[in-house]
């Protein structure tokens, strides 16, 4: 399973990065390949490359606010959740998404 994602929270200084780390760790423990971009108050970091997006099975948006560059994900399967969900239960979140994808 290959995943790309974006994390962005309201103040853009804490939750964004906590969420990124939690999701990355959870994905790695499940054996998935993942790339996560952050859109914090400082701007975009770890920007996703077109190749990474192209190769991904789905896009995971861990966001509380409107993000930039959403058109990059046109035609991909997109899942959007608040940062809180990803911080509280990252592994369960990823498993739930993957289960749904495989069921459909």
């Amino acid at each position: 399973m290959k995943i790309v994602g974006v994390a962005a929270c309201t103040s853009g200084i804490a939750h964004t990065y906590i969420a990124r780390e939690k999701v990355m760790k959870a994905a790695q423990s499940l054996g998935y390949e993942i790339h996560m971009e952050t859109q914090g108050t400082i701007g975009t970091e770890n920007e996703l490359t077109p190749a990474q997006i192209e190769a991904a099975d789905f896009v995971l948006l861990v966001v509380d606010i409107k993000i930039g560059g959403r058109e990059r994900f046109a035609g991909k399967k997109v899942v959007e959740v608040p940062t809180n969900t990803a911080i509280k239960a990252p592994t369960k979140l990823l498993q739930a998404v993957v289960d749904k994808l495989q069921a459909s």
Partner: protein
Amino acid sequence: MQLKKHAMTAISYMLPLVVAAGLLIAIGNLTGGSQITNFKNGYSIPSALTTLGVWGMGLLAPVISAAIAYSIADRPGIAPGLLSGIISYNIGAGFLGGMLGGFLTGWLVAFLVKYIKVPKWAEGLVPMMIIPLLSSLIMGILMFFVVGQPIVWATNALTSFLNSMQGSARFAFGAILGGMAAFDFGGPVNKVASLFADGLLLEGVKQPEAVKILASMVPPFGVTLSWVLSKLFKHKIYTQEEEDNIKVAFPMGIVMITEGVIPLAAVDLIRMVVACSIGAAVGGGLSMTWGVESPVPSGGLFIVPAMNKPLLFLVALVIGSVVTGLILFAWKKVPSKTDEKLETGEPEEDINLDDIQIS
């Protein structure tokens, strides 16, 4: 309708502006500046800083309104959103008017974009002329004649009510605001309290802002204090991992980021929430009672010198933190061996993931 997401987007765009403008005013005022009224007579650097800060504060309603409209309707929302916001600022409907104006503008623009159909040769005119003109015209008339006035009255009523509060009412207000701000460590309840305080700051009511700042720092300081007590009295209440988290939470607390406490609250929610809310409520009540005002909405200990009563603020902060620290020290259980083990597996909360939508 995603009201919350749009409002949060606006706040995320607004925060750096509020901080910059607030600090400029504070630095200008502290160095003897005042707002410049006549530019022909020459002016000092401090006065220039204060003036810039005041202008920056004036930009808040337009920025909020534009950001909400952008969040709803994307790029076409920005121009009419700025205009709705500047009306709000100038007629005195301030922050609330900016928010309402932003939502109305966003919905209107999204509606226009969807339903305006023109012949092929005129398609270029839609984004360049038709939508900006129509949306600004409609929103302008709405804001001037319909939406603005009731908000001006509501804002004035709220401001004068808060300014007229005395004695125990002031303490109760500060305690509720402080308790709310600390309740969920930067979550939705905290954001409601902090939105309220930020809104009042724009109306010139600066005391709730001091309460908010205090309440954001009480949880990390209180927790740190309880840990220091546990070391002093050799009464272990934190696991090794929690101790590591406290060492991170404390410096975050200095710059007013409460979120460092979350890992600690996650494993002992009720005790942490109760202790932190009570401490912040006590501190907040004292801060309101003593009339501590903060002209800056964010920045932690570094902006204390900009407050009108820095010493009293620190006293209230210390009292609140001590209350939280003592409650935690007395109430928290000695961690058992199994607790130490469980944590390395990082337990996750059970949340309902059934309604996840894949699009």
